[in-house]
């Protein structure tokens, strides 16, 4: 059975089993289920039998990950007991990372360091269970995993298992592992891979390298003496296509067409058929040995076409979205559940020793010392224990360190971008946002921007500290249309609430509007209803306890704006001729 007839996810599994350390790992997207379990079982079976297979829980602490002192055992035994770290335990095998989309930046950094060439021989299988619109796993980690795949749909897997009774892979991977070092370097293929990566907008140097390794592994599986074009195309589809940031602008050459035509969106439309571009691949590959090497240019354009066919529809949109809303913010998600583990130290407190909390040794000893004689007597009465220790510690001696993390404060601008406001106010709001950002990054504060116009509100700038990104998203802020004030306030309320619940941050809302609402909450026009909805939303804002400032931008102070400010308990600042600098001054005075 040839490699190219398999489902892409199975292809990825095969490649990974042949060269686990060289490829670094695999990111498997999609929720848990039999398809994913089947893939993992196959991978485990295909690896050498003695290769370790470890699961990495998200809440792992540094001692367990990198190795350190096992405190519980040490206390019981009365001598230091060391434990090996999970990273060294998994060396030479696979480290399974469930719920990879929730990995924090610090764990990602440690894994990325372990995946550096020569650091430790590790292979990470990240199970990304996030929804498609959620931010993917941290970029520093994703960058180092060569392969990205989606588990096949259930019926496809069933049909595959039906064809091969044993749940193993229908290929001789042990033989392929032996062949792998003998595959020679091929300049034309590398050139084509580099060109393809460049055409897909991949600036990093890692993807072409990873694609080359994948091509070598594919050649080893197929039993080729050198990397053929088919191998290279397969590698490009598996490694380069899921990372594409741009669609290649290659002219449609005749050689490229069969591949592009015969390959509609691979997983979505025709899952039960063997992998479509296979026909084109074999066609192109078969004349090759007799012709000698085709010119690199041809190779590259064919490869681009094959890769392009493998780019799932909608991928580019989701990538663009991920780029602008940024999965790069540090530790937003999942951070609220943990007490602060770092920051300025506070006095330690008696408490149980749990994962994530750190023992204050001195306070613990200090608490234990007064009881030593009593406890010693007690122990002597009970007969000698298993290991007589000098110091008798009890659970209730434990003192836990506590830290205070500085509050992250976020300023959310809610800008009226409707027709009555668009002309001059938008420019001023943009200027104020940038001025505030320049000041914010000194204090490590963040800024967000919501604009409302037409029929709804839109978060144009997710909370960020990056001036570069803010400037980019502000430059394209459109204006015009009705004034859906209620929608704007509601969007601000949602964002503000999520900010305040995440790690106890503080949100400050700044409204720039003339409060002339004319679109109601349900999107229908009409002033009275719109104003009533806006006031209702404003009261909800007040109930949530969000601090806000309302800057009235109409030519003369509006009673409606004053009423709105009162409803949301906001500071009311009339700024008829407000320039960016004045808006900024008003906001920083309020903050």
């Amino acid at each position, binding site marked *: 059975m040839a490699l190219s007839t398999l489902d892409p996810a199975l292809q990825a599994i095969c490649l990974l089993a042949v060269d686990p350390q060289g490829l670094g790992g695999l990111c498997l997207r999609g929720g848990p289920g039999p398809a994913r379990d089947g893939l993992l079982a196959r991978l485990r079976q295909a690896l050498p039998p003695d290769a370790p297979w470890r699961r990495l829980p998200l809440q792992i602490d540094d001692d367990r990950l990198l190795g350190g002192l096992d405190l519980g055992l040490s206390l019981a035994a009365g001598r*230091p007991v060391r434990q090996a770290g999970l990273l060294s335990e998994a060396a030479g095998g696979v480290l399974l990372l469930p719920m990879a989309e929730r990995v924090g*930046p610090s764990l990602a*950094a440690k894994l990325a360091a372990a995946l550096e060439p*020569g650091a430790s021989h590790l292979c990470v299988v990240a199970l990304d269970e996030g929804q498609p619109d959620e931010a993917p796993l941290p970029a*520093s980690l994703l960058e180092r995993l060569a392969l990205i795949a989606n588990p096949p749909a259930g019926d496809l897997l069933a049909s595959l298992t039906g064809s091969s009774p044993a749940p193993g892979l229908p290929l001789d991977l042990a033989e392929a592992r032996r062949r792998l070092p003998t595959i020679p370097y091929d300049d034309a293929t*590398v050139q084509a891979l580099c060109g393809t990566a460049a055409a897909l907008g991949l600036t990093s140097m890692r993807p072409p390298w990873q694609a080359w390794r994948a091509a070598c592994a594919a050649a080893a599986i197929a039993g080729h003496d050198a990397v053929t074009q088919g191998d290279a195309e397969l590698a490009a589809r598996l490694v380069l296509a899921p990372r594409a940031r741009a669609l290649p602008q290659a002219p449609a050459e005749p050689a490229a067409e069969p591949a592009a035509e015969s390959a509609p969106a691979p997983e979505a439309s025709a899952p039960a058929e063997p992998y479509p571009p296979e026909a084109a691949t074999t066609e192109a590959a078969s004349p090759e040995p007799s012709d000698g090497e085709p010119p690199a240019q041809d190779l590259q354009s064919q490869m681009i076409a094959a890769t392009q066919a493998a780019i799932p529809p909608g991928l580019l949109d989701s990538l663009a979205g991920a780029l602008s809303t940024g999965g790069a913010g540090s530790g937003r998600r999942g951070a609220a559940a943990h007490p602060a583990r770092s920051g300025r130290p506070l006095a330690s407190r008696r408490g149980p020793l749990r994962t994530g909390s750190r023992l204050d040794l001195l306070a613990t000893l200090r608490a234990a010392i007064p009881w030593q004689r009593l406890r010693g007597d007690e122990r002597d009465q009970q007969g000698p224990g298993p290991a007589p220790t000098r110091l008798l510690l009890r659970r209730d001696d434990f003192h836990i360190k506590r830290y205070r993390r500085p509050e992250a404060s976020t300023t959310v601008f809610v800008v009226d971008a409707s027709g009555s406001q668009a002309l001059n106010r938008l420019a001023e709001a943009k200027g104020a946002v940038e*001025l505030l950002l320049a000041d914010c990054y000194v204090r490590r504060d963040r800024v967000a921007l919501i604009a409302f116009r037409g029929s709804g509100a839109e978060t144009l700038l997710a909370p960020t*500290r990056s001036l*570069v990104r803010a400037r980019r998203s502000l430059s394209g802020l459109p204006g015009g249309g009705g004034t859906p004030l209620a929608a704007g306030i509601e969007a601000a309320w949602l964002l503000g609430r999520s900010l305040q619940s995440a790690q106890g941050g503080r949100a400050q809302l700044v409204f720039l509007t003339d409060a002339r609402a004319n679109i109601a909450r349900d999107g229908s026009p009409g002033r009275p209803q719109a104003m009533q909805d806006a006031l209702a939303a404003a009261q909800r804002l007040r109930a949530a306890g969000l601090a806000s400032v309302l800057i009235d931008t109409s030519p003369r102070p509006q009673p409606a704006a004053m009423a709105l400010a009162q409803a949301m308990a906001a500071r009311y600042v009339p700024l008829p001729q407000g320039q960016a600098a004045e808006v900024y001054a008003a906001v920083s005075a309020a903050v």
Partner: protein
Amino acid sequence: MSSTPFPFSAIVGQDELKLAILIAAVEPAIGGLLVLGDRGTGKSTAVRGLAALLPRMRAVQGCRYHCDPAATARCEDCMRLKAGGRLKTEQRPVPVVDLPLGASEDRVLGALDLERALSQGIKVFEPGLLARAHRGFLYIDEVNLLEDHLVDLLIDVAASGENVIEREGLSVRHPARFVLVGSGNPEEGELRPQLLDRFGLSVEVKTPTEIAQRVAVVRRRDAFERDPAGFCGQWAKADAKVRRQILLARQRLADVALDDAILQRAAELCVAVGSDGLRGELTLMRAARALAALQAAPEVTPVHLRQIAVPALRHRLRRNPLDDTASGERIERAVAELWH
């Protein structure tokens, strides 16, 4: 694959980065190096390659901070060793220490040695990453995402060259002088200006856009992975040349003449671009001198100054949030106006 790092001279392109690293190796007083740019551009490869290439250093044997035997100020360990007789010395490689993003304060600063406190009941200081990086390089990937309290610590230690610990009943101070190398992608977060200013040079790296260069990167990496020893052997000659260049430059550094006219020019440039503080002039002067020493020039010429102006000043300009012009261009423009 083994722990042999990729040879420094085999890195394709990235000339500005390589030059800045060499300058930092010749003149550690330059105060660190900031590398901004995309992922996968060979930042960490270059830093690790350089450390492997540097000659081994002499250090006091048994000192936890591997002090220089010739140093006048002695650390706690050296004092103790000295009291016991003559100091023994050993040769050891120049350390390159990674500071991971989520590192705890204990790991960075050092902390009470839990093992010995538990087993022997004695209070011993266990040195952290800063102690390990003494006289070497401290490399921080994604420095712009580093947590604030760690940034504060680093600023303090990098400025004073000394790590002071007052916690857990410990009161320890030890030398920690290192070249801070930070890298990051500015799109993911800004760096505080206080920390920015501590970096001597700032380099912007880009991935090579030419296909030929990218192919060369993959080709060399492939050759390296297949046969690390053989590949390093091929590049050993080039690496040795770089090593000789660094060693000679270090010797020459003190003898490189620096004219008052050059200093005048440096000051004029700093005033023209409006850099904050005096660190700009100092860095410009030191970097130009190191560059002259690397090129075996007897004195610093305006050409050296010009070559180093952008990396030395790029990150020191007062930011105007409403002005989009890249800092590098602003400096180039000022250089062109001032010196024609």
